[in-house]
């Protein structure tokens, strides 16, 4: 569980006659993680595609362009198809339906382009509407120069000065004056200079005829006609999408599988008459692979296992052994968190199990509220039906297990939607004089009780009111304690990892001192608190020993530079308390605000809940629900992010990914989603 699945290096060699059935069988078995042949041995060439590789990839490109036009997204399958149905319908789908889709899509694009050009035309015609001229009068002169546009100031006098012969039409537009100036062609440049002094900006005039208003109306009506044509086309595409969606995705899957198979030999080594496949397979599956392949190839094939020593040499030469994490189904979702950081290397530990142990406890300890826990659980139960992709399912499962722990811790903390509220009503609380007694004795841990059982635990600390001073001190201790355990487990794995790589110096002088430092620092601190000087002395001695070991380690005296980091690692676990306090604080504030501020105030200073007015109760509840809602959202986010950080920063740095990430085991084959097996 803490280790990835054991892998064996295998070589499959066979006659080229049987390459097709062998590839077919390998694809079906989905067992062999193929190591690509890189062509570095002169006696072997890189293999060539078999069968109709070209046709399949052409069909695939055609299909993908159709699905792109239909805006088809990958989704969870509604129904599955047998391969024979795909084969019989593929031709129709690609050629008839496909051609129809392409033609429709192209017509829609053409309509959209035409509508856009007509809208542009209308935009350039609109300013001309204020001038009294028909459209044909702007064009077709040999001896006249035409200027149409807007000016900022009156131009008549200045134009008349440079060109006594002129014709000027003006009309007022929104922010400027629209003008049309006609002058003899030989005065054009002078008039242009005069106009530019008046802030002239040219308007382009479309080459049309007739009245401006009727031209605009004509364009608008043709836009309407085009839009009317477009609507049924869009509906047609939507219908095609709805009707063929699953079939298209199934065909896509079929074609992808076929290309995968036909192009597989590109990853093999080949001679004129034989082929060789290198790969890794989970060790316990070897005999199955061997017998299945040999029966598929009818004896013209040899499947052999490479001895460990030889395999080791290949790894040293740079071959990556693929990693398949091996966890029970309850732990599987936590592989997501591991993968988000890095795939473990083959020789490393797979931390998913540790995350499964620590992550939900940390989540629960931070959130710790029966009400929030149950709410989150129910919401996730709904989301689980909605988001069905594996990634979302894993994430939802992770938070769901966390919410169960939050409910459990909520019982320890005596919180249902924060302190001061439902817990007291449902489970009851201590009588006033007992609270006073506890406070006087300095043993006040909260006022809630477990119904008739009263307060439980040593000194009666449960239900623990997290806002009480004693509880904060207790939780500080608990947080650091969890931190020491968490980090120590990391350190132990770190030592074992380095021993696994055969690097003893790193194991004993880099990782072991850290473990000693963490453990004995805690013992020293505990001694200080309990006033046991022998514990302080013992802790101090071993801290010194660990420092000396660090100096003797691979980094020399520089190793000491890491000590503040290890110290801050431990302090960092205080966040388990801190984020929790923030969340309790907000919930407390919400309850206080609603029940002790808003409701009494709006009821005119009523002291008893029976005297609250309806309005006060409604406003109070609104505030209550909204603040709790915000707290709930934060209550999913921070209890998730912070334990995540505690794993990534505080724990993983002790042992994980020292050599960089590994390669995920991805066997040759395809998981059928839309196709029947």
């Amino acid at each position: 569980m803490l280790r990835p699945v054991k892998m064996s290096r295998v070589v499959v060699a066979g006659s080229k006659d049987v390459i097709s059935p062998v590839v077919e069988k390998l694809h079906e078995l989905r067992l062999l993680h193929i190591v690509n042949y890189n062509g570095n041995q002169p006696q072997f060439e890189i293999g060539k595609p078999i069968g109709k590789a070209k046709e399949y990839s052409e069909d695939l490109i055609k299909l993908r362009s159709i699905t792109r036009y239909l805006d088809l997204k990958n989704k969870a399958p509604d129904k599955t198809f047998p391969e024979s149905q795909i084969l019989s319908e593929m031709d129709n789908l690609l050629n008839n339906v496909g051609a129809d889709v392409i033609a429709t899509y192209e017509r829609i694009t053409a309509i959209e382009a035409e509508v856009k050009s007509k809208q542009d035309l209308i935009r350039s015609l609109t300013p001309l509407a204020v001038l009294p001229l028909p459209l044909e009068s702007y064009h077709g002169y040999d001896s006249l120069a035409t200027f149409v546009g807007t000016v900022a100031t009156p131009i008549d006098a200045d134009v008349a000065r440079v060109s006594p012969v002129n014709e000027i039409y003006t009309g007022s537009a929104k922010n400027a004056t629209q003008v049309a100036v006609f002058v003899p062609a030989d005065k054009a440049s002078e008039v242009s200079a005069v106009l530019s002094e008046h802030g002239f900006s040219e308007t382009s005039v479309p080459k049309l005829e007739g009245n401006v208003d009727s031209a605009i109306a004509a364009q608008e009506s043709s836009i309407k006609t085009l839009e009317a044509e477009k609507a049924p086309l869009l509906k047609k595409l939507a219908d095609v999408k709805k009707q063929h969606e699953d079939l298209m995705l199934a065909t896509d899957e079929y074609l992808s599988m076929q290309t995968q198979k036909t192009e597989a030999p590109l990853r093999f080594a080949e001679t004129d008459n034989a082929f060789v496949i290198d790969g890794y397979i989970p060790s316990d599956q070897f005999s199955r692979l061997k017998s299945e392949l040999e029966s598929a190839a009818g004896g013209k094939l040899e499947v052999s296992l490479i001895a460990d020593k030889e395999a080791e040499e290949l790894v040293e030469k740079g071959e990556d052994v693929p990693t398949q994490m091996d966890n029970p189904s309850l732990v599987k979702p936590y592989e997501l968190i591991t993968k988000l950081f890095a795939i473990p290397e083959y020789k490393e530990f797979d931390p998913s199990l540790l995350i499964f142990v620590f992550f939900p406890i940390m989540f629960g300890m931070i959130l710790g509220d029966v009400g929030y826990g149950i709410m989150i659980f129910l919401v996730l139960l709904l989301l689980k039906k909605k988001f069905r992709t594996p990634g979302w399912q894993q994430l939802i499962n992770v938070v769901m297990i966390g919410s169960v722990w939050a409910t459990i811790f909520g019982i320890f903390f005596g919180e249902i939607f924060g302190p001061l509220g439902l817990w007291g009503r449902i489970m009851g609380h201590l009588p006033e004089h007992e609270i006073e007694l506890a406070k006087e004795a300095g043993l006040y841990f909260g006022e809630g009780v477990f119904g008739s059982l009263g307060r439980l635990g040593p000194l009666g600390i449960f239900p623990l009111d997290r806002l009480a001073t004693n509880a904060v001190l207790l939780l500080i201790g608990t947080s650091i304690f969890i931190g020491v355990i968490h980090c120590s487990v990391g350190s132990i794995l770190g030592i074992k990892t380095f021993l696994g790589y055969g690097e003893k110096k790193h194991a004993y002088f880099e990782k072991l001192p850290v473990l000693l430092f963490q453990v004995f620092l805690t013992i020293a601190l505990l001694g200080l608190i309990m006033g046991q000087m022998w514990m302080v002395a013992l802790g101090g001695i071993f801290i010194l020993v660990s420092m000396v070991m660090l100096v003797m380690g691979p980094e020399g005296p520089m190793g000491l530079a890491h000590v503040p980091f290890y110290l801050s690692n431990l302090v960092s676990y205080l966040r388990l308390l801190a984020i929790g306090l923030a969340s309790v604080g907000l919930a407390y504030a919400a309850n206080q605000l609603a029940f002790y501020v808003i409701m009494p105030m709006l009821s005119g200073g009523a002291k008893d809940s029976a005297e609250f007015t309806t309005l006060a109760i409604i406003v109070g509840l609104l505030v209550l629900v909204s603040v709790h809602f915000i707290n709930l959202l934060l209550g999913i986010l921070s209890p998730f992010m912070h334990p995540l950080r505690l794993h990534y920063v505080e724990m993983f740095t002790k042992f994980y990914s020292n050599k960089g990430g590994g390669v995920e085991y991805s066997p040759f084959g395809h998981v059928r989603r839309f196709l029947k097996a």
Partner: protein
Amino acid sequence: MAVVADAGSLYGLLAVGAGLATGLAGIGAGMGEQGIGAAVVGVVAEEPGFLGKGLFLMLLPETLIIFGLAVSLILMFAWTPFAGIVTP
């Protein structure tokens, strides 16, 4: 004339100190995360696989707030020389 502070104002000063410790540490951590966060978003846009390591880097400065918070907690709850004065 001797300055005499009563328990109430001492407690008030402690609270102000505790608030400053957490608040200023928060500002510092925020400033640290600002640059890292922007860089991580940039890298993740190019290479989505970097998200986990990016988060790791981005969350590093967050410990600073916890230091501030630890100081606050000590001030408010655990500093015994004052505990006798301030607890009524």
